[in-house]
């Protein structure tokens, strides 16, 4: 794996911040939060600290949910207006050398493995373009880093001429590797820590993903590489959602200070049924997911908050107007799924199957405009 011992870090990394916030100690702090801290956090209105965030996700904030919803909605409208961005995932491969317990791509699942070649990618592009899509998120499993970068570089060459904005959600790479891909037009990178807690090793027993700290340092490497957008999140259902999200907020504050040119995005992947039959030990209720989304907005008015098709149509229709600024719709989670659907190869089952156009209509009924394009492919090339 290409770890950059040769590249001297310019800034202290998140690893150091993380070391100063032990899981058990943060758990104890969370348990002690009272009404006064919640009220203080509410008064920060979009400019909060990680401590404020912790108060907003604490049990003490639960009676304030209605107030939080009003505040989050007003902050979102002020910063983002009455708009929601639309992107679609483009799965390139389901190959993976990890065996994460919850994931349909785990190498332990006996499903055929494919990686799209240029022709297959072009078929996907044609379908996506036909749906009016301008922003895509490339997704793969984790495969050998060297081959991955080579392949992703090729894929970007095939894909970037057709879309305004191309981001990706693949395994963590080195700073130098990110720089190569950014030169090819890569806009943003999503890397979720899944969980920051002691159970990480249990859920990620094999492959490169077993390296907790390599993953933890990814956002710093992305910031140093100068990527436009960094996507963060915890996988909801693995451990205590309040604590896991607190660490994400801590990371947000760290990144904002050190990499001021990168935009930050938060996703809310709640565990869905997948091949392998994994059952989350800490399921997150609708009420708690709403509390979490509102907490992020009240903590930080600038965050892009993204809600995918993992969630149900009803839930999305109600929650999007409260603070979400980016969505997908009509997603296929298997490689080649737009041109040649094959649910056997899915990473997970989606819950909201509405097409992007149906989603646009549903948003319009809520007084929200769908932004198909919010970037220009000519922007963002390194100087």
């Amino acid at each position, binding site marked *: 794996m290409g770890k950059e011992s040769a590249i001297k870090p310019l800034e202290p990394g998140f690893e150091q911040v993380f070391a100063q916030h032990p899981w058990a100690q943060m758990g104890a702090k969370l348990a002690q939060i009272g009404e006064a801290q919640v009220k203080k956090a509410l008064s920060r209105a979009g400019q909060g600290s990680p401590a404020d965030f912790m108060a907003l996700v604490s049990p003490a904030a639960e009676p304030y949910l209605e107030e939080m919803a009003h505040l989050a909605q007003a902050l979102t*409208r*002020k*910063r*983002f*207006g*009455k*708009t929601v961005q639309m992107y679609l995932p483009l799965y390139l491969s389901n190959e993976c050398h990890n065996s994460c317990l919850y994931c349909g791509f785990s190498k332990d699942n006996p499903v055929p493995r494919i990686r799209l070649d240029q022709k297959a990618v072009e078929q996907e592009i044609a379908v996506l373009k036909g749906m009016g899509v*301008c922003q895509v998120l490339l997704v793969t499993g984790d495969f050998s880093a060297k081959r991955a970068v080579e392949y992703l570089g090729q894929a970007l060459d095939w894909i970037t001429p057709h879309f*305004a904005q191309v981001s990706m959600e693949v395994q963590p790479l080195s700073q130098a590797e990110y720089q190569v891909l950014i030169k090819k037009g890569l806009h943003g990178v999503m890397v979720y820590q899944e969980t920051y807690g002691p159970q990480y090793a249990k859920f990620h027993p094999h492959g490169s993903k077993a390296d907790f700290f390599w993953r933890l340092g990814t956002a710093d490497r992305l910031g140093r590489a100068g990527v*436009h957008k960094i996507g963060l999140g915890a996988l909801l259902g693995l451990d205590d959602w309040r604590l896991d999200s607190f660490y994400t907020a801590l990371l947000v504050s760290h990144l*904002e200070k050190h990499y*001021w*040119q*990168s*935009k930050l995005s938060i996703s809310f992947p709640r565990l869905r049924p997948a091949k392998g039959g994994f059952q989350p030990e800490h399921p997150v209720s609708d009420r708690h997911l709403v509390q979490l989304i509102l907490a992020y907005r009240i903590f930080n008015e*600038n965050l892009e908050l993204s809600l995918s098709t993992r969630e149900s149509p009803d839930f999305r229709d109600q929650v999007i107007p409260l603070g979400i600024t980016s969505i997908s719709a009509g997603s296929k989670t298997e490689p080649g799924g737009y041109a040649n659907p094959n649910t056997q190869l899915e990473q997970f089952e989606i819950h909201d199957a509405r097409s992007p156009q149906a989603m646009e209509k549903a948003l*319009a009924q809520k*007084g*929200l*405009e769908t*932004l*198909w*394009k*919010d*970037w*220009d492919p*000519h*922007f*963002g*090339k390194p*100087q």
Partner: protein
Amino acid sequence: MAGAKANPGVAPIFKRGQLKKDRLIIAGKEFSSRLFLGTGKFSSHEAMGGALKASGSELVTLALKRFDPQNPGDQMVGMLRQPGVSLLPNTSGVRHAKEAVLAAQLAREALETNWIKLEIHPDPRYLLPDHEETLKATEALAKLGFVVLPYINADPVFCKKLESAGAAAVMPLAAPIGSNRGLMTLAMLEIIIKESTLPVVIDAGLGAPSHAAQAMEMGADAVLVNTAIAIAEDPINMALAFKLAVQAGRMAYLAEMGQTSSEAQASSPLTAFLGS
């Protein structure tokens, strides 16, 4: 007052005529409205079109990043192409001068206008302008024949530099974009308005019609408003409210308001001993 019955409040003042003759000129182009409208953040193209009509604006900004040049039937552009309304594409999203020049050229090609609102904000959170890059881009774009309206911090010295660089107007911010906080940079704006040889368009942060009126009373040549109108519950009436506020503020400026004073006028004059 005559005419007050027919149209209470507005008509009599109009009939005195001064507003009708009042024109703003930027790069040789005349504007009778001094309210420029930003077009992001609206709930729909229709809501934006309605607000545009109500605002009476004759210059509307349009983000290149939101416009799809490959889609000639782009609904938003269609909605903005109304008689008497000119487009002012902006470069929002670019991070340095080179990108801004490229963006301006793309906008010129796609929208057939050489007007450009130059926005270079490498920081995606506060969207604050980068002056080094803005100066470079203004020089380059002016040489390429663009009418350049740069979005800037309220910095009087920088405004003088932009004059030399070939800007057509300056657009200093009142407060961070989208903050609705009003004239936070008041002291600097006063200097800019006093010293500028270019039209001064106060941009960003005007959250209420009263903020716009205050900017116009101070002598700003125009204001640009987006968020406050777009996110109002009723954008059409809010657009109208801003239109009236801008007119009221301009009228007050032309009518030469009395100086405000924090001290009472002394009843015993201090210089009476000098005689007359």
